[in-house]
């Protein structure tokens, strides 16, 4: 095989080359058996890794189908519109109206996002545009850590700090008596959970804006801030929007932290200083008795399916926006 030229070349017949040829001859003793085994291993692994990879879209499908199958009994007996627009929640009588839970979820999420977006976007822009290296080196790990803290820890923080703050500070300020376990409390705790995410995505997105644009802005005599606002932010706008959507969908499905501070009263919270009952809290609080009441399990799985559908829609939308930005940037 490989040593043919080697041996037949008289000009190369130094001692060194003879030694080399001897060594190469050893290589040739390795039979086709090994080549076959290597190819077989390669083909096997090709199938294995591809299988694992394709399991992921299937997993998504399996989750949706699994929940849908369990939710079927409820959907087939009660029209979908009634489920979504009725606020009659009497599991024992078989009445399942999700309106109160839907309103609760949306309210908590909106409060969280409205609070988190200004902070998240501003600090994201600050980090990528206006901060020095030392700040960045401190901020990035801090954001990572905030993102890694489990939600139950945020929950305990909410119970210890935010609940009293709402009970003794915010509610009396508006002349309302409150236990502190309110929709607003849930929103506040959630916003702290969401803004690291928003900050990180904004930070990433703003960094993709090409430097040439910044230089162009500055060269026209714009101040740093004017360049940021009129050039960089405008360019990064779709990404910032996507960051907010991702924050929204993260907040939407958050369970334990909200559950711990939101009060969990089945009612439509007309103002944020009332207790509410978001969908994730509903599922988590009642899994214990869901098998003992007819249709209750079906109702909870329907709730989970609802959650999945909304989060999925928001996520796919945000990913598409980000993807388009990435393509444009390249």
């Amino acid at each position, binding site marked *: *095989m*490989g040593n043919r*030229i080697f041996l037949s070349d008289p*000009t190369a017949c130094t001692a*060194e080359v003879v*030694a*080399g040829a001897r060594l190469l001859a050893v290589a040739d003793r390795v039979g086709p058996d*090994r080549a076959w085994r290597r190819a077989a291993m390669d083909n096997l692994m090709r199938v294995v890794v591809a299988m694992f990879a394709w399991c992921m879209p299937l997993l998504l499908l399996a989750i949706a189908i699994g929940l849908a199958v369990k939710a079927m009994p409820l959907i087939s007996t009660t029209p979908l519109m009634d489920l979504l627009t009725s606020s009659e929640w009497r599991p024992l009588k078989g009445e399942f109206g999700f309106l109160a839970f839907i309103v609760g979820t949306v309210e908590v999420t909106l409060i969280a996002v409205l609070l988190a977006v200004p902070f998240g976007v501003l600090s994201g822009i600050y980090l990528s545009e206006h901060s020095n290296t030392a700040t960045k080196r401190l901020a990035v790990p801090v954001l990572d850590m905030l993102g890694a803290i489990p939600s139950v820890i945020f929950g305990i923080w909410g119970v210890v700090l935010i609940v009293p703050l709402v009970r003794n500070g915010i509610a009396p300020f508006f002349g309302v008596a409150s236990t502190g376990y309110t929709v607003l409390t849930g929103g506040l705790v959630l916003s702290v959970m969401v803004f690291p995410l928003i900050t990180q995505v904004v930070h990433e997105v703003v960094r993709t804006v090409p430097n040439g644009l910044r230089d162009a802005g500055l060269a026209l005599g714009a101040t740093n801030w004017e360049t940021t606002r009129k050039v960089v932010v405008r360019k990064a706008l779709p990404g910032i929007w996507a960051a907010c959507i991702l924050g929204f969908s993260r907040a939407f499905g958050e369970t334990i932290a909200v559950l711990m501070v939101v009060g969990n009263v089945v009612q439509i919270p007309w103002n944020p200083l009332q207790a509410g009952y978001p969908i994730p809290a509903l599922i988590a609080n009642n899994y214990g008795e869901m098998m003992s009441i007819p249709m209750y399990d079906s109702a909870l799985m329907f709730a989970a399916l609802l959650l999945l559908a909304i989060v999925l829609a928001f996520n796919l939308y945000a990913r598409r926006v980000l993807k388009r930005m990435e393509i444009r940037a390249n």
Partner: protein
Amino acid sequence: MHTPRTTLSVRGLHVNYGDHAVLKDVNVDFPDRRLTAIIGPSGCGKTTLLRTLNRLIDNTEGTRITGEVLLDGQDIYARGADVTGLRRKMGLLSQRPTPLPMSIFDNVAFGMRIHGERPKQQIAERVEYFLRHASLWEEVKERLHQPAGGLSIGQQQRLCLARGLAVGPEVILGDEPTSALDPISTRHIEDKFTELKERYAIIIVTHVLRQARRLADHVVFMYLGEVVEQGPAEQLFNDPQHELTRAYISGSIS
């Protein structure tokens, strides 16, 4: 010196990427034990041609290849051709040296190990041999088990050469192998090529005309995916037959 035989030849090769024809009806004979330089302006398909020779192009999605590449008379694109066996017969040096994420020793031993288990003693012997072969032994013999990433760029490229030689190739392919190197390291590699072409067929892509003049025995000039002219270096540089070749060599197109 005896007359060179052809070990590697390309017959009627077309490469399409999507609708775009990257190579159009390429016919080249690469002489054995000679250094062939493929020259031409950037984007003319030099690198693509090189990558078809060891079927690395297979890894680029969306390419369609027709025609033949004959190695020792066998079409490497024939159905059932042994791709890994083929690649083993071709050493590759890329633009930037690419040491593998392991020690200097393991880099050279990598090819031998994947192609067949051998006693430790023999591997060690061969590693030393090929490191000497690439004129690197003296510089690294004290730190064989340190990471290859710690070598200078020039040393890394010689390590890649040793690594390529260690699997026992017949042909050495170089894709602008000196473009990332400093002048002294470039000299090193060029000297090595001059020495190695006594035993191997060497094919390099280069955009440095002076390098082609210095090293090449045989030159292939390409333009827009076609081979415009090929022949012995002396003839091609001193008496180009084609208008385009003349223009390129004189520097009026690039």
